C-alpha cells in the first residue's frame, strides 16, 4: 500500500519538485571553527573575508539584536569576537532598534585595515518603536588589526542599511549600495558621504564590484548592468545583460516582487589575476564573466550553469546563495543549497531539510566539478550558507547554518523546522 501511494505520487510533476536530495551523494567534509560566546546570531550574508594577513573575518547578524564581528586566526585556529556592535555603539539595553546586521562583504585598504557597514534591514524588533532607528542607518566601520581597534568612520546614509561595499584604495573612497536602492560614495578622508543616485529597485543590489580602474558595477532591471564611471563621476545604465535563464519566483506579494534578486547578479567580484569581473546570476545559478574593458560597454560570457541536476529537472530553483568564492588558481567555488533556504525566515517559500552542495568551476575553461554535499566532520548537515571565501592557501571558508543537535546552542530553526547554529567552516579538500 505504501509503495503504491509512493509510486502514484512520484508520477506527478509536483512531487518531482519536492524531491530535494541531489542524487550525487559524494560528501565534502568541512571542519567547524566555533564562534565563541553564548550569543545566538541567526543569519549571515556576504560578511566573510580572507584578508591579506591570512586572517578571516566574519560578520554575523542577530535579528532584533546585535551584529557580531569576529576574527579567525589560522595560526591559533581560533575565532575571536572583536566587536559586539550593539555593545560598541551603546545600543544594547536601551529599548531601541539596533544595528543587527553586517550585510556587506568586508573590504581591505592598502594598510590592511578592514571595513564593513551595518544596518537593520528587517532586523526589527518589529514591536519596538520604529522611530528609534530614524537617525541610524548604514554606519561604516574600520578595524585596525595592528591596534586591535574598531572605529566608526561615519554614517553613509540615514535609515537605510548597507549591502554592497567596495573600496577604491587609490582614491580612498568606499562605495556602498544601500537598502534604498541608492549608490553612495564615502570619502574616507573627509568622511563625507555622497549620494550618487538611485541604481535599482528595493534591496536587491546585494553586491557591487569594482574594476581595476575604480569603476563600480552592479545590476538593475532585467539582468542589465550599470556602471559608475569614476572619471565622469556618473552612473550609466548599460544595455549589456548578464546571462539569464528565467526562473520565476512563484510568490506575488507586495514588498517581495517577482522581479527581485532573481533578475540580477547575486554575487560579483573583480578577479585581478584575470582582469575581469566574475559573478553568479541570482535566479538560476549561472556563473558568468564580465569583461568591462572589452568592446564599447564590455562583454559578458556564460561560464557554466551551476544549478543542481535536480533543480534543472524540476525547474524549481532557489535564488542563488551568496556563497561564491574565487581561488588563487582561478577556480570558483559555489555552495548551492538544494531547496529554498533563508535561515529562520518565516517566508512561506522557504523549505526545510535543505542540503548544501559545494561545486567548483574553472573560470577559464568552464570545467565544473561537484565536490560533494557539505557535512561537518561529525556528520552534521550544512543547511545553507551565506558566504564563501577562498584564502591564499586555497582553503575554502564557508559560513552559514550547520545542523545543531544541542538544544542549548540552537540559534534558530531553518524554515521553522531544522535547528541550526551559525558556524565558520573550512573545506580543506576531499581527502577522506
Amino acid at each position, binding site marked *: 500500500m505504501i509503495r503504491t501511494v509512493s509510486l502514484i505520487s512520484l508520477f506527478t510533476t509536483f512531487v518531482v519538485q*519536492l524531491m530535494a536530495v541531489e542524487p550525487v551523494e559524494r560528501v565534502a567534509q568541512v571542519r567547524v571553527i566555533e564562534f565563541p560566546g553564548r550569543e545566538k546570531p541567526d543569519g549571515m550574508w556576504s560578511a566573510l573575508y580572507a584578508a591579506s594577513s591570512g586572517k578571516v573575518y566574519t560578520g554575523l547578524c542577530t535579528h532584533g539584536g546585535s551584529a557580531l564581528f569576529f576574527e579567525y586566526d589560522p595560526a591559533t585556529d581560533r575565532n575571536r569576537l572583536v566587536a559586539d556592535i550593539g555593545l560598541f555603539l551603546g545600543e544594547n539595553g536601551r529599548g531601541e532598534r539596533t544595528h543587527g546586521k553586517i550585510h556587506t562583504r568586508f573590504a581591505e585598504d592598502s594598510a590592511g585595515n578592514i571595513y564593513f557597514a551595518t544596518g537593520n534591514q528587517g532586523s526589527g524588533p518589529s514591536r519596538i518603536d520604529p522611530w528609534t532607528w530614524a537617525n541610524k542607518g548604514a554606519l561604516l566601520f574600520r578595524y585596525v588589526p595592528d591596534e586591535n581597534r574598531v572605529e566608526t568612520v561615519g554614517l553613509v546614509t540615514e535609515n537605510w542599511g548597507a549591502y554592497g561595499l567596495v573600496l577604491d584604495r587609490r582614491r580612498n573612497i568606499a562605495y556602498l549600495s544601500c537598502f534604498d536602492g541608492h549608490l553612495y560614495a564615502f570619502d574616507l578622508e573627509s568622511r563625507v558621504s555622497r549620494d550618487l543616485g538611485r541604481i535599482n529597485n528595493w534591496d536587491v543590489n546585494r553586491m557591487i564590484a569594482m574594476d581595476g580602474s575604480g569603476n563600480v558595477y552592479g545590476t538593475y532591471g532585467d539582468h542589465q548592468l550599470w556602471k559608475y564611471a569614476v572619471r565622469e563621476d556618473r552612473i550609466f545604465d548599460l544595455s549589456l545583460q548578464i546571462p539569464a535563464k528565467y526562473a520565476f519566483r512563484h510568490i506575488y506579494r507586495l514588498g517581495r516582487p*517577482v522581479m527581485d534578486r532573481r533578475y540580477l547578479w547575486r554575487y560579483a567580484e573583480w578577479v585581478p589575476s584575470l582582469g575581469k569581473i566574475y559573478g553568479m546570476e541570482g535566479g538560476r545559478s549561472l556563473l558568468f564573466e564580465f569583461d568591462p574593458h572589452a568592446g564599447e560597454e564590455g562583454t559578458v560570457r556564460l561560464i557554466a550553469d551551476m544549478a543542481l541536476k535536480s533543480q534543472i529537472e524540476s525547474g524549481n530553483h532557489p535564488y542563488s546563495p551568496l556563497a561564491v568564492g574565487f581561488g588563487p588558481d582561478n577556480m570558483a567555488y559555489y555552495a548551492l543549497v538544494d531547496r529554498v533556504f533563508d535561515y529562520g525566515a518565516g517566508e512561506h517559500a522557504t523549505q526545510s531539510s535543505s542540503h548544501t552542495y559545494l561545486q567548483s568551476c574553472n573560470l577559464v575553461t568552464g570545467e565544473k566539478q561537484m565536490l560533494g554535499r557539505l557535512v561537518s566532520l561529525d556528520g552534521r548537515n550544512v543547511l545553507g550558507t551565506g558566504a564563501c571565501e577562498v584564502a591564499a592557501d586555497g582553503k575554502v571558508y564557508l559560513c552559514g547554518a550547520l545542523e545543531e543537535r544541542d538544544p542549548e546552542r540552537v540559534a534558530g530553526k531553518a524554515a521553522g523546522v531544522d535547528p541550526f547554529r551559525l558556524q565558520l567552516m573550512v573545506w580543506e579538500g576531499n581527502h577522506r
Partner: protein
Amino acid sequence: MLRKRCLIDSLVFLLTVPICFLVPSHAGQSSQVTGLGLNQHRIDYRDLGYAPGNLIEADNSKITSLITHPENGIVFGATSGKKAALFCFSPQYNHVRPLGYLPSGEGVHNALALAGDGMLYIGTGKDMTLEVELPRAWETELGTDHIVKTMWRNLKAEYSDYSAGRLFRFDPRRWAEMQYHADRKAEVEDLGSPVSGEGIYGLTASGDGKSLYGITYPSGHFFVFDIASSSFKDLGETWDEVIYAGPRKGLRTLPGQLVSGKDGACYFSVDRGRLVRYEPDKDQIVRLDAFIPGDFYPVHNDFETYHPAVECWTAGADGAFYGGTNEGYLFRLSTDELEITNLGKIRTSRRIRGLATGRDGRVWGIAGEDRIGCTLFCYDPGKGEFQHLGPVQVDRSPYYAWYPLRFDSATAGLDGTIYLGESDRKGHLYLIMPTE
C-alpha cells in the same frame, strides 16, 4: 531513506494543496504589508519614454514640475538632472512623450505655468534635488552665526559663475507635432532671465492670466513677468534673513512654490512663517498678519524664532488654497478672511512635497523626506479627515516593479487621476486612480 522522504513529501503535498486553495493568497496583505488604502490596480507608473528609443535618461529624469492643461487634460512635466527635459503625458493615448531637453538649465523646480495666453511657461535653474555639499573647513570668525555665514558664502560661491535661470515658452497645442526625441532640444522660445546669477525656484501664472510670478534661488527675489510686454520686473529680495530651516541640509529656506488667486494677487511665505501677498494693482508686496503653522523643537529653548516655509500649494475646490510646509503641516488659507487653519501633520517625518486637488475636492499629497521615503495621503475637507495611504509601490512583476521613495510634484488630471512626479534618479510618472 530516500524513499521514506519522498513518501513524507508526497503526503505533505497532497494534504496541503487543498488547504492552499481554501486560503485567499492576498488575505490581509493590502493593509498589513504596505498600509495602502488603495487597491494596487489603482496605482501605476509610466517610464519617461521608451528605453531603446527615446527614454529620458536616468540622470535627467527627476520629475520636479507637473501641470495639467485645463482644456485637453494633457499633463506636462519637466525634469531636473544633468539637463532639464520637458515631456507630456496624454491620458487619451496613455504614453509619456519626451519633448526634448531645454536649451539650458539643469532643473525646473515647481516652475511650469499655463498662462492666460494658453502657453506653457517653463522656468529653469540648477538641479535642486541634489544634496548640497557643505564646506567642511569652518572659518574662524566669531559669532553664533559663523556657520551660517560660511554656508551662505559657499552657496553664493556656487552661483558666482552661474549666468541665470531662463524663462522658456512652449505652445502646448503643438505637443502632437513634436518628434518625441529625448536627445534633442525642445522647441521652446527663450524669453530671457528674471535676475542675473539666480535660478528660478518657483513659478506660477497669475489668476487673471496676464502675468507670471516667480521666486529665485538662492537670493529669493520675487519677480513678475508681464506676458503682453514680455518683460521682467524684479521686486528684490523677499526674505530678511538667510535661514537653513531644513529638513534638507544646506538648502536655503525659501518658498518652494507660489500661488495666485483670481484677483491676480500672489501669496508666498517669508521669514518666521509669515505669509505675504503681492498686489499687482499696487505693484507691491504686503506683509500679512498671517502665519503658516510650524513645529516647536526643544532646541528652540523658548527664545528662538522658527521659520517654516511653504513647499507646495493647490487650489482647493472650496475656493481656498491648501498649502504644505517644509515641516510637514497641511494648512488651509482662506484669502477672503486671510485666515490660516492648521489642518495637522500627517507624518512624524517632515515635508509636504506636492499637493493636488482631485475631482471630488479631496486634497492629495506627498509627505516625507528624501532619506525616509515619501508616502501618499489625502485630506477630505468635507469630513476634515486625513487618510494616510502609505508608499506608492507598483508591482506588475514580472513585467515591471518599482518602489519609489522621492516625489517632488503632483497634479490632478481632468478625469480625477492624480499624477505624481518621482524625483529620484530613474524617475517615473506615477498615476493614482482614486475611487470617489
